[in-house]
């Protein structure tokens, strides 16, 4: 193990919990589009990406297990709402396709930058995962950006819908980067450079793509924080109830 002390292990757990919870919750949310997508091909593509997210969350939960936490299923299906560390952006219902696409764009761009940074992490197993997810995330951002450019330059209605969805999602997207309690420790141990650095890199990249699409980033917006500290919107608990419904019938069942 490449950690110096317990403080570093706890900091790494903080980081991985929020990443894993983000992937699990958006994976579940996006799977709600299965069977309802705008056309068959998009339905399959979006569902497939939702499965990728669930797969990534499982890898991250397994990493937590290596660090002494319970196994992936237990962690994913038995925690209370206030023990989840996902950001509010991902808890919100799927809404209409414009909102789901903008969320997909803003979150996956942040994921892409986060994993790009983590390739350099001193925590070797996390760096290896970051490398492993590279191809999947690249496709996800390619999908998101192609749709964004398409709809934002389509007709008046599609452009207005994308702008409205962006206005709604922007403060929530800034909540992705809510600082954790372990930022300094993560940086000191070269595990992760921190949310502030991530946010700055993300902002630069999404600004260029949103400008290209002709959309305006809302000004004077306050970031919506709370998710990383276990404070959630009213939408998370119903999602968890549905997600854990089958598991709760018989937690010891073998699949």
């Amino acid at each position, binding site marked *: 193990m490449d950690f110096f002390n317990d403080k570093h292990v706890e900091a790494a757990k903080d980081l991985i919990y929020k990443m894993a919870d983000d992937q699990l919750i958006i994976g579940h949310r996006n799977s709600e589009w299965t069977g309802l997508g705008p*056309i*068959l*091909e*998009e339905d*399959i*593509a979006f569902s497939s990406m939702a499965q990728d997210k669930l797969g990534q969350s499982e890898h991250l939960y397994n990493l937590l297990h290596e660090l002494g936490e319970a196994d992936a299923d237990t962690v994913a299906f038995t925690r209370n709402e206030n023990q989840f560390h996902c950001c509010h952006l991902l808890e919100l219902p799927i809404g209409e396709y414009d909102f789901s696409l903008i969320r997909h764009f803003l979150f996956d761009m942040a994921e892409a930058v986060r994993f790009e940074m983590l390739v350099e992490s001193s925590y070797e197993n996390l760096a290896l995962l970051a490398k492993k997810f590279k191809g999947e995330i690249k*496709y996800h951002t390619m999908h998101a950006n*192609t749709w964004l450019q*398409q709809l934002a330059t389509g007709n008046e209605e599609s452009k207005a819908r994308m702008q409205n969805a962006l206005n709604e999602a922007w403060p929530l997207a800034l909540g992705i980067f809510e600082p954790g309690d372990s930022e300094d420790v993560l940086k000191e141990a070269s595990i992760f450079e921190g949310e502030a650095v991530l946010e700055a890199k993300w902002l630069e990249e999404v600004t260029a793509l949103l400008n290209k699409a002709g959309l305006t980033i809302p000004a004077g917006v306050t970031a919506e924080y709370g998710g990383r500290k276990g404070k959630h919107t009213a939408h998370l608990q119903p999602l968890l109830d549905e997600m854990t419904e089958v598991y709760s019938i018989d937690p010891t069942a073998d699949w």
Partner: protein
Amino acid sequence: MIKSLDPRIDRAKLTHDAIEPLKEMDQFQTFEVFHQTKRGQQHVHVGVVHAPNADMAILYAKEQYARRGETANIWVVSSEHVSATDYFDQDIFETTPEKFHRDPASYKVMDRIKAYKERVKA
């Protein structure tokens, strides 16, 4: 005759009166998808996707036809750009079999290959 946005439907020359032609924008155009397993190998036609343009078609081709197994590259080509023979002319492929002058069977190349292999081995 059914007039479709999909040229393959047009080529089928459907005349069923009960089928209403789709209104414009009711469906996307189609793209033919070609899949290459390894670099250097030929691209093989694997199917079609509906998409508004080539960029979106590539996104969909990846998920429909390259989700499992190895892939090096994908092509998409608008179905409109495919020229095809008419099934009415299928008889052009029926050539008479009695053309021994086309048959490569009488070449004696195997003897020379065998002789070469033995020479190399020795």
